[in-house]
Each structure stands twice: as structure tokens, then as C-alpha cells.
């Protein structure tokens, strides 16, 4: 069995989601190769070579991969897919963008966002916003899989795999990169943070998110949001936690002014400890909260900040 894992990387290097994808590959079992595609990827490949359980790192160093455009990246993977039984990627926006394209070019189904490996052809994946778990068996010879990163604890990085270059597969020229507006933050990344504090419509404005920021800084937490808070323009889209946003499973999740719609719960209900602060004691979020505080958030948040400063 040979497994190709698509590394999640950008100009800054390797992203932690790669380590979760490798963890899933290990659960499948086999010879694991990691593909690092990008421009000037030598340093990233060296990082990938340290991932535990990886037998080989492949690099495709070409400007055409710099922005992870789906068409060239899929063409690259398909060009080397013959040697692999599995193609595995983390279910990030980049993974979700490219893997179905690879699957279709190989004429196989994709198994999206697996949370468990039952056997070499059988996997568990959430459906209906995580309100049901389906066990699915694939009849395809090659299996293309995306991995819910929160379900597979990251592997370590004490290995030393050889690095080998593969040829670029060219650019079909169907799309081109214009630019990006990326959120800048000193805080940990939402999907990798140990503590997440999220605000909802109850925050009333983007300015009021400063109340959360201060607490996040005290706790070393990431800041997230509900869809309603993003739609209202309080915070950028990349803050959204939920069925159609980011999936998080931190040690501690604090939901402030969030009602607890199923679509939001889908993104955070696997957190270890959940705290809810909401002025409505009937809010559904309390049904999943380990600790609920019925309070006005504009009173509770300054108090919380003060209490944490003690």
C-alpha cells in the first residue's frame, strides 16, 4: 500500500494540518509519501521530511504551484497518482478545492472529511452537519480522501525522510491568481488553538470584539465567530466556525452571544470543555455547554477579563 499525502503549505512553510493528514494516513497503514508543491519549497520540504512515519518527501518546485491553483495542482497529483493506492489531504479550503478535482480525473469517488479509519476501504464521515455519522465503504481501486484534522491528533516531527524532486506537470492556464487579502493576527490559528473564544450576533458590533480580544490575549486563545457575526460584518469570513466554516476542537471553547444553531454546533461540539455566556437561559448552546453563565455579555466579559488578571 502506498499513500500520497498532499502537504498543506504556503510561502511561510508547512502548515500543521499536514500532520493531522499524515496521522490519518498512518491509521490506514502503508508507505507514506508527502507531496510538497510550491515555489521555493526546499525549506518546507525539509520540515516535511521530519514528519514521523513519512517514507519519502516529493517536491514539485514551480511558480505555477505558488498559489495552489486547483487545475495545475490536480494535474500534478494525477501525473504521479499511478504509484499510489490512496491520496490523502487535510480538509482545509485548499484540500477541499483540489481533491475532488483529482478524484474526478481518476474517475473515483472522494471520501470527504473522514473522522475515523475502520479498515483499508471503510471510513466514518459526518453527514447532516455532524448530526449523523456514516460508515462508508469504497469500491474504487484508488481512494481519494480528505481528513477532518480535529479527528486525528497530529503526529510528531522527529523523523528524517529522503527528499526527491518530481517534474512539474505544467499549467493548463485555466485560471490565474490575482491577489489575496489575508487576515493578520498574532494569535494562534483557529483550527490549531488550544483555547477558542467566539462571538456571535450578541456582540452587536465589530468594535465590541475587542472585549473578546483582550480575554483571548490573556488566555493565548484564538478568536472565532458565528456565521451571523461574520454576515453582519463584525469580523472577517475566516473567523467562522461551523458546518460550512472551520471545524475546531480545542481544549476550551467559549461561546459568547451565540445561540447554538446546529450549523454552529457542527463546528465546535467536539471541543473538550465548552463554556457558554448568553443572556437567554433557553439558548440551545446551553444544551452542549459544560459551564453555562446566564448573563449580559457586556457585563460578564469585563468581569472575566478582570478575574483572569487576578
Amino acid at each position: 500500500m502506498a499513500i500520497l499525502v498532499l502537504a498543506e503549505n504556503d510561502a511561510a512553510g508547512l502548515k500543521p494540518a499536514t500532520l493531522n493528514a499524515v496521522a490519518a494516513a498512518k491509521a490506514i497503514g502503508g508507505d507514506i509519501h508527502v507531496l510538497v508543491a510550491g515555489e521555493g519549497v526546499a525549506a518546507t520540504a525539509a520540515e516535511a521530511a521530519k514528519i514521523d512515519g513519512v517514507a519519502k518527501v516529493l517536491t514539485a518546485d514551480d511558480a505555477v504551484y505558488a498559489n495552489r491553483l486547483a487545475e495545475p495542482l490536480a494535474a500534478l497529483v494525477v501525473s504521479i497518482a499511478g504509484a499510489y493506492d490512496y491520496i490523502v489531504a487535510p480538509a482545509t479550503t485548499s484540500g477541499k478545492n483540489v481533491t475532488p478535482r483529482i478524484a474526478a480525473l481518476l474517475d473515483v469517488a472522494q471520501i470527504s472529511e473522514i473522522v475515523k479509519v475502520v479498515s483499508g476501504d471503510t471510513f466514518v464521515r459526518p453527514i447532516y452537519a455532524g448530526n449523523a455519522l456514516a460508515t462508508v465503504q469504497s469500491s474504487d481501486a484508488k481512494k481519494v480522501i480528505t481528513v477532518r484534522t480535529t479527528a486525528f491528533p497530529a503526529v510528531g516531527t522527529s523523523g528524517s525522510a529522503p527528499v526527491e524532486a518530481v517534474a512539474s506537470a505544467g499549467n493548463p492556464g485555466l485560471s490565474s491568481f490575482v491577489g489575496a487579502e489575508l487576515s493578520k493576527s498574532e494569535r494562534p490559528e483557529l483550527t490549531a488553538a488550544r483555547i477558542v473564544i467566539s462571538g456571535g450576533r450578541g456582540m452587536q458590533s465589530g468594535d465590541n470584539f475587542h472585549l473578546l480580544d483582550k480575554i483571548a490575549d490573556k488566555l493565548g486563545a484564538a478568536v472565532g465567530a458565528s456565521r451571523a457575526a461574520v454576515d453582519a460584518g463584525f469580523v472577517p469570513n475566516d473567523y467562522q466556525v461551523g458546518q460550512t466554516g472551520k471545524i475546531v476542537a480545542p481544549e476550551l471553547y467559549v461561546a459568547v452571544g451565540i445561540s447554538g444553531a446546529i450549523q454552529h454546533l457542527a463546528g465546535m461540539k467536539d471541543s473538550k470543555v465548552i463554556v457558554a455566556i448568553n443572556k437567554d437561559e433557553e439558548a440551545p448552546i446551553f444544551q452542549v455547554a459544560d459551564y453555562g453563565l446566564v448573563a449580559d455579555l457586556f457585563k460578564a466579559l469585563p468581569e472575566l477579563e478582570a478575574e483572569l488578571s487576578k
Partner: protein
Amino acid sequence: MKVLVPVKRVVDYNVKIRVKADNSGVDLANVKMSMNPFDEISVEEAIRLKEAGKATEVVVVSIGPAQAAETIRTALAMGADRGILIKTDEDVQPLAVAKLLKAVVAEEAPGIVIVGKQAIDDDSNQTGQMLSALLGWGQATFASKIVIGDGSADVTREVDGGLETLTLKLPAIVTSDLRLNEPRYASLPNIMKAKKKPLAEKTPADYGVDVAPRLKTLKVEEPPKRSAGIKVPDVATLVAKLKTEAGVI
């Protein structure tokens, strides 16, 4: 330019679904069904393109049981021009949906296909990307803005790090994300008018596509339930509990 919009009939997003006692699937008896919310957004975008003079015709297509005709009628009532129902009672998975859509594209020759980012029942997030691969077209997934130019489209995408913009050569596939627009409600007169709009009925066999599922569902289970914890009286108690009882701060 013609715009093609696939619309899927799914369990309404407000429904709290139930897993069948025999673990064979999700109980869909007497459950409210609606158009997949992302498809509503796609229909809205297509209609806006037509209203702005960028598109000439909006064609919607649904693959599903006879009742999927209602989903098509909803899109027609919003303002789409014409519908195609590919009738089947099979569970048609994303790869097969993409193959059927490819066949529809071959007949209709749209300049752009706006697919939903994800169906909220299977949560696959695959079909648009697969269709784009099968056609050999460019793709821009998770769109929050589409600007049609001359033979190209600039699409802003919602990605993990924020936003990015791509230029696509047309024809191309775009998948819609939540913030692309806010779909309109159909007015009563438009619902009446929609009843007279053309709706063609086909079967997968008409397109020569094998829709046999590649993934077999062995069982469907409820996820482990989280039970409600306790209510704390004040912030001081909350912090104390998080420190000593939960040990997370």
C-alpha cells in the same frame, strides 16, 4: 451567455434530523425538504447576472425524485427561465452528479455553471470541482464575489486565511459560498408565473450515465451525545471551575 445552476432538494436546514433505529440511514419520512441553501445563493447570483445584462438565460437542473420538480419550481419562481429534472430514485453521488451535469453542459453550452459549495445533507463539497475536472474547465470554489468580464470572470474566494481573487477563463465553474448574496423570496405572482415556465423531464439513461454509487453506506449512527453541564452563578465561579475542576486555564 447562458448560466446553468444545479439545484439539489435536501432536508431543510432548520430540521433536526433523526437517525433510523435500524441504522440504515436518516429518517426522511414527513420531513420538510427545501432547496440546498447554497443553491438558492447560486440561483440568486445567476438572476442578478441576467438582470445586469451579463447573462441571457438562467437554466436550472436537479437530479432526484419526482418531488425535485418542486425545487426547480422554486428556482423558476425566483426568476430562473427554464428547468431540467433528471428523475431518479437512486442515491446519486457527487461523481455521478458531475457526469450528468457534464452531459447537460454539452447540450446547453453555458458560459458559466454556478454550483453550490456543499450540499447540507451529504456535506460532500465535491460536485463543482468534479464537474470542472470532467469538463477541463477552470474552477473557483467558495465564491463571495463574481465579476464577469470579457471572456473571463474575477472571483473572490473565501479561504482559511481570508480572501483571495482568481481570474477564470470562461466557460468555467464557480461554487457559491454564504456571502455571495442574499437570495430573494419569490413573490406570489412569480410563483404563479413559474408554473408555466418550461420544465423538461429526463432520466440518467437519456444521458448514458451510470449512476451506480461508488460508496456504499454500511451504517448511519448518532454521534455521541454531549450532555448539558452546569450553570454557574457568576464569573468568579466560572473561572474557579475552569482552573480547578476542568483544568483548562
